[in-house]
């Protein structure tokens, strides 16, 4: 009988953002689930500590209870409000201030979208809003392109974390430009969290192998056939990718090198 042995693993440090430490490097969204019970079970299975929420008008006909906090215990998770759906710096700042007033924390996942079709960020608006919000004391986590120069400017603007995309929001295309992500990670001092685009566990693993500090996903879980099982897979993929990064991969060679001794062969 084969028994599973837990091997000693590489010691990791906690994820630190804006003076707070987190044990999970997987951050998850709460949108698009077919029902709230599935959402809660998927978040539990993911092991995530930081969960994102959106800021919206309350429905004034009180026939349905759509507020996320009726389903998600805010004492168990770190709520990261986003400015999703904002197309100008001014709108994003308005949403951020409303979100902070809810009284949970002063973190904001800043999105300033530039194009409805691709949901790619408006990097000029993003920098403007990031600078203003950081000055107001927000811990800004900015969703951005996989572009080094923008990432550097966001860091200069005072962002607590920079969140380049793996591929467009909700696309599930996976990590399209590992080189850009590695370059951003190599040059920034603040945490780099890859946000958006992963589709399955191997995407999460490959992303974490680039050495980034964390990964944020929503659609890959919500639109999986079984969101709870996929959340479990994503947790393993994220942990595997992080462990592989810390372990340090072997060099790539364009030649074969035998794994078994060449000596001791039968004559």
């Amino acid at each position, binding site marked *: 009988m084969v028994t599973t042995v837990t091997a000693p693993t590489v010691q990791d440090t906690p994820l630190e953002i804006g003076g707070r430490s987190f044990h999970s490097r997987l951050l998850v*969204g*709460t*949108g*698009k*689930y077919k029902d709230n019970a599935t*959402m809660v079970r998927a978040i539990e299975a993911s092991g995530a500590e930081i969960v*994102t*929420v*959106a*800021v*919206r*008008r*309350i429905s*004034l*006909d*009180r*026939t349905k209870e*759509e*507020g*996320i*906090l009726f389903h998600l215990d805010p004492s168990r998770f770190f*709520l990261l*409000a*986003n400015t*999703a759906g904002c197309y100008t710096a001014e709108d994003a700042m*308005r949403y951020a*201030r*409303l*979100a902070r*007033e*809810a009284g949970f924390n002063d973190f904001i996942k800043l999105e300033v979208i530039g194009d409805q079709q691709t949901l790619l960020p408006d990097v000029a608006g993003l920098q403007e809003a990031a600078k203003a919000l950081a000055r107001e004391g927000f811990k800004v986590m900015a969703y951005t392109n996989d572009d080094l120069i923008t990432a550097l400017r966001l860091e200069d603007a005072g962002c607590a974390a920079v969140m380049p995309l793996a591929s467009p*929001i*909700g696309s599930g295309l996976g990590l399209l430009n590992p080189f850009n992500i590695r370059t951003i990670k190599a040059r920034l001092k603040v945490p780099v969290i890859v946000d*958006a685009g992963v589709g399955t566990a191997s995407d999460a693993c490959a992303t974490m192998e680039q050495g980034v500090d964390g990964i*944020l*996903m*929503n*659609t890959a879980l919500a639109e999986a056939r079984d969101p709870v099982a996929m959340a479990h897979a994503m947790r393993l993929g994220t942990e595997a990718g992080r462990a592989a990064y810390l372990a340090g991969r072997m060099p790539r060679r364009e030649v074969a090198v035998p794994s078994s001794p060449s000596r001791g062969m039968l004559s």
Partner: protein
Amino acid sequence: MIANLPRLHAVTDDRVVGDGRVVERAAAMAAAAGPALAVHVRTRTLEGAALLDLARRVKDAIAPHGSWLVVNDRADVARAAGAQAIVSGRAGLGVRDVRRVAPLIAVARSVHDAAGARAAAAEEADFVVAGAVFETPSHPLAPAGGPDLVGAAAAAGRQVIAIGGMTPANASGIIEAGAWGVAAIRALWDAPDPAEAARLFLAALPATRTVALVVNGESRAVSEGTTLAGLLAQLGLDPRAVVVEHNRRIVRRDGLGDVALAAGDAVELIHFVGGG
């Protein structure tokens, strides 16, 4: 909100319509109450042409005084007669369908509980006729909802006309509970002098001064002096679960009771929903 919605509604039934003096009495009440009066033509005994004929005769009698003609259930008759409003009963057409037939006429729903009032608000009825408020011989089996029914219906955000056992003596408490106006059958039509009864009703109604606002993009009205805290209470919202923005300025929870709403104010009520 309909700023000029009459506050006294003289509602007919089969008995009143069959009495023969209905047009004459409607005219007398209209002369006394003017634009504050609405006369509801409501009967199951008259078919289309006869109903339209009655509605037209009532309209001719009351229109010179500025009173409203309201027709129950028959959107076609309401439109043909030039009624100002139509009341759709529980089994009647939905508000949107009524508007297809009669697009320029105010549409009300007859409701019996808070859920009905919310449903009416959801289908964007202009106002609701809520009852029975007190026990009434016209609906002997209907449970009387009292001021609670009126308050719950008003919380749904539409103007409420209270019906069921209304008299000049009990009207002021019902207005204080949140009704815009009152409706009566017997207390008006059976009075020895219906015009005097209408005057007594109007004298008993405390003023409802209201201000029109936009809340989360929807037009609403609240009574003068209502604070943000009062607005949340009317909407049934827990202030701890809402962030309030008033004219683009965030108002802290502990300050909600200090901000009185004024005409034209824009209020945004925000919470967290699922998002990525």
